[in-house]
């Protein structure tokens, strides 16, 4: 029981925040942000007794509408698979939150509080493993619908998703090499520090001549240590999520709606929901790997707790630091969600061959080069130190 209770509480917290609060609000942000970018008014009709709250009631209206629509299964469809496919698509999206740390590790007397549901030492590999199950959901959906458009959509989805899975895996190897771990909490701890921009010049005895420039520091975030890895990983996970500009499996103008064409009501709703949950997963993952996780730049955990302990005492200071870190994490998540929405409404959809060329001919060689250059730089710095 002592093991289970904190785990259940942490699970309910992350699912409550990510699925219960973030995902519905994102559907609203998607409508509102696209409206702003396209110079329209946007979602503002749904109301309760004349109160619209800026259109924030639209997600609620969506759920009611999806639940009360007829559940149409086309003739000749495989009924069991047709029913299972949206579940297979939605469950992995939610389960990915298990290894994402939304806060650090805190000591309250004898008890250690670790703000992650399952602190696996192969954390990132778990996300990849779980996320690739979602591919089955889309492929089964297209196959089970007994519809030619759906089949075409699921074929596109299968080729696109497995291609980008390769580059997704290879583009983060550089991060593993820098942080020397696959565990996401360890990455967070490693990013809760700073490095000197011109620190490498020390080996040549040049730091002194730089004056104050020699003491300039940057937070050691993944995005600063692996900028190319950040861009490539973001592209790959967005392609995995199948949202515009990578929404070729849906391709409204050519194949109607692709793999979920024959889905209605809440079965469609689960596909729709899993896309938005994946937006949150991507944002949280990018934050944990590249944007320093829960850490506040230039203010390490020890600094914060040490700074406010004289005022409030150790226990309250640690609790305050924990709250501060969780808030910081979700602020960064919101920034990443905004970035994804901005990309989604800015870029047009490329042709299918262009999408595949980008994966196999551009990003695969680039990610291999990134690994080799990263390795070379790490070894040279190491050699200079010893």
């Amino acid at each position: 029981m002592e093991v289970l209770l904190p785990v259940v509480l942490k699970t309910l917290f992350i699912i409550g925040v990510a699925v219960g609060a973030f995902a519905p609000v994102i559907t609203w942000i998607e409508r509102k942000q696209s409206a702003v970018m396209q110079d329209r008014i946007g979602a503002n009709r749904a109301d309760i007794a004349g109160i619209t709250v800026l259109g924030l009631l639209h997600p609620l209206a969506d759920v009611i509408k999806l639940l009360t629509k007829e559940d149409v299964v086309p003739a000749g469809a495989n009924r069991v698979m047709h029913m299972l496919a949206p579940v297979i698509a939605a469950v992995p999206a939610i389960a990915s939150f298990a290894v994402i740390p939304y806060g650090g590790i805190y000591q309250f007397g004898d008890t250690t509080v670790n703000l992650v549901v399952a602190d696996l030492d192969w954390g990132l590999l778990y996300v990849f493993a779980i996320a690739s199950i979602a591919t089955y959901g889309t492929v089964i959906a297209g196959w089970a619908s007994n519809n030619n458009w759906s089949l075409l959509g699921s074929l596109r989805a299968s080729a696109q998703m497995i291609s980008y899975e390769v580059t997704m895996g290879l583009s983060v190897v550089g991060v593993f090499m820098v942080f020397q771990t696959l565990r996401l909490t360890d990455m967070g701890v490693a990013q809760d520090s700073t490095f000197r921009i011109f620190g490498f010049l020390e080996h040549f005895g040049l730091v002194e001549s730089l004056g104050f420039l020699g003491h300039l520091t940057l937070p050691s975030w993944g995005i600063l240590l692996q900028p190319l890895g950040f861009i490539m990983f973001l592209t790959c996970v967005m392609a995995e999520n199948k949202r515009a500009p990578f929404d070729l499996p849906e391709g409204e103008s050519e194949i109607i709606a692709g793999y979920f064409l024959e889905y209605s009501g809440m079965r469609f709703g689960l596909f729709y929901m899993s896309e938005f949950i994946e937006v949150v997963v991507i944002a949280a993952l990018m934050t944990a790997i590249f944007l320093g996780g829960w850490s506040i730049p230039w203010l390490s955990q020890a600094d914060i707790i040490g700074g406010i302990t004289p005022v409030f005492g150790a226990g309250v200071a640690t609790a305050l630091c924990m709250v501060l870190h969780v808030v910081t994490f979700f602020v960064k998540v919101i920034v990443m969600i905004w970035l994804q929405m901005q990309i989604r409404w800015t870029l047009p959809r490329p042709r299918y061959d262009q999408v595949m060329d980008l994966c196999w001919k551009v990003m695969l060689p680039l990610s291999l080069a990134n690994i080799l250059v990263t390795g070379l730089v790490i070894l040279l710095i190491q050699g200079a130190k010893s």
Partner: protein
Amino acid sequence: MLAEYTGAVVILAVALVLASALLGIHLLVGPRRSFAEKDEPFECGERPIVSPHQRFSVKFYIVAMLFILFDVEAVFMYPWGALFTELGWFGFVEMLTFVAVLAGGLAYVWMKGALEW
């Protein structure tokens, strides 16, 4: 040791309950008025003349084979990456050899036109 995995199991269970609850409520609440025309698979108003459940040429199988090849490579790189500083120059040269072989393979399929659409 196994205690680490309780979280993963719990979140999986919660996700399953959530998804099936939504589908269950929908089955209970949604109306049900079916007739032959509505149940027909959507084909822009035409009657479907070709069933999707027959043999079709899957051009995508080459991608699937390449995926297996390069995904094994990626999985091999994870432990190597996590132990990189310990392995040092030896590990770097080893991986360089491994990547060179695979890059040769990539160049070969590229030249053969397997990556053209």
